[in-house]
């Protein structure tokens, strides 16, 4: 056997392989990052310079923040922003309370009909949102809740999947802890908040993250129940801007609005990227 030759071949092969891998991975990274680069770049080009570039340039030598000023002045971006924050915070908070209480009941308490109720809950997981949105729209309209926060929030506060996720996690806490707490005279509610929740913090954070992302990006339901721009969320705002704002073709101003809307989640993501990715993959794989 020609050992030197085999050795050499193996080394060359490893080198080629790693080069090809890196090239491939970097190409995808560019595809992912390019739209972000482009939106920031466009947002700092002036209206006239953007429109004078028949072939768009990859850089600009005269950055301007005028577009950002426009985004806040000529359309009601700050209003959309505020609405979205209110919507996200309230929805997430109510959802968490509902989910935690339900998960606790399923995991910890004994009562007649628990198993059948849980089975019904689980079967509801299969129901797509599109199926129920029609009646919900009618319901909210009948209750005169169009263009109100209540109308936006109420149908989005329950998620069977999150109840399931948290219940599974709660059940991993050994019974002995509950018994010990009972012996010490701890009430159920206190046990839930002082013992179970701290132990299951990662799952709660997962749920929180997933819900916040969902809220920030929600479009379909808000579009149905709001037609008054005072109650638009950022997604609807963007759509509104696209169709009516900025005198149609002011793309740099549009991009400034897009940057402003995208930045909060991206910043949160960059700070907590490890936690968020772990959370999403937990939430995802258990589904």
């Amino acid at each position: 056997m020609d050992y030197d030759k085999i050795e050499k071949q193996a080394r060359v092969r490893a080198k080629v392989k790693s080069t090809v891998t890196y090239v491939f991975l970097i190409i995808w990274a560019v595809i992912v990052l390019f739209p972000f680069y482009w939106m920031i770049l466009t947002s700092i080009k002036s209206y006239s310079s953007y429109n004078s570039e028949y072939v768009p340039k990859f850089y600009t030598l005269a950055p301007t923040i005028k577009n950002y000023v426009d985004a806040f002045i000529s359309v009601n971006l700050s209003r959309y922003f505020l609405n979205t924050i209110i919507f996200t915070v309230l929805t997430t908070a109510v959802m968490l309370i509902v989910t935690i209480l339900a998960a606790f009941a399923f995991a910890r308490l004994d009562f007649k009909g628990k198993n059948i109720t849980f089975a019904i809950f689980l079967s509801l997981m299969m129901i797509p949102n599109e199926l129920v949105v029609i009646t919900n729209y009618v319901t909210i309209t009948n209750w005169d809740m169009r263009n109100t926060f209540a109308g936006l929030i109420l149908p989005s506060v329950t998620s069977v999947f999150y109840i399931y996720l948290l219940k599974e996690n709660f059940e991993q806490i050994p019974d002995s802890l509950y018994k010990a707490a009972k012996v010490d005279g701890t009430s159920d509610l206190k046990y839930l908040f002082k013992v179970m929740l701290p132990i299951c913090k990662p799952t709660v954070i997962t749920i929180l993250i997933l819900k916040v992302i969902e809220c920030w990006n929600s479009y379909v339901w808000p579009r149905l129940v709001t037609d008054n721009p005072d109650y638009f969320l950022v997604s609807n705002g963007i759509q509104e801007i696209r169709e009516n704002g900025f005198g149609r073709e002011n793309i740099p101003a549009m991009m400034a609005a897009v940057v402003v809307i995208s930045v909060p989640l991206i910043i949160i993501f960059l700070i907590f990227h490890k936690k968020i990715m772990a959370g999403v993959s937990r939430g995802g794989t258990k589904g």
Partner: protein
Amino acid sequence: MNYNKYKGWLYLLPAILFLGLFMVYPLVDVVVYSFEEGYNFASQSFSGTGLYNFSYVLHDPYFMQAVKNTFIIVIITVPLSTGIALLISLGLNSIKPLKDFLQTVYFLPYVTNTLAVGLVFMILFKKTAYSDGLINALINMFGHDSIDFIEGPYWAKMFVICFYTIWIVMPFKILILTSALAGVRQDYYNAAKVDGTSKFRTFYKITLPMISPMIFYLVITGFIGAFKAYSDEVAIFGTNLNAAGMNTIVGYVYDMLYGNSGGYPSYASAASLILFAIVFTITVINLMVSKKNVQY
């Protein structure tokens, strides 16, 4: 201890209340609507019961166009995105420097607002009076004429929407597959290496079977998600999807409910039940196939 009997229900009360109102009741109601012919929003009255709503929807060219679009999007994006995600995850798992950085970058689209980033894609592809857009500039560089991706030929529009859909769904798939791949113990690879197993065979005989449950999971959820495509389309083509010829089934439901054709909950219900039937069938088929192929 009578109180204890009801305590469980007390904790469950909010969940049951919300689910009952916004999930169970609508579920029954949507079926009812779908059989009520000519239901009128304002007077809350209807002219008769029967299958007319279904027949109307199935004969509506807009609906058939939406079904066609949806199926094309599903068939193109699900296999492509899963395949590319697998390649990327394999690549990621084989490198050390830059791994964390790339993983974070790849995940970015997950946390962005679909509507907002869709606008960026639109301007990248869009042809306007001032400019043919960046993508067309690239195409011109290769000596080809500009294509109007946003308002032009059907397949150009389909290309953009599939590209954007894949861009949006990749982060989740890459994340799931990289962690599935990382979960395959190094020992298996070492054992294969000592036995002189080729790279391809190692992948095909060891890696793939071991991560097959996750791949099927992604395919199933991918199908379900793609069948519900809607906001990506709005992001690229605007709210009037019928005019763009790019509507999807979900889009059709919403248009029927509101939007431009305005206020036909019966048709919307029928269409959404048809969608549910399609998704349900496909999922059952998927599950049957995966039962056969997921090997342990």
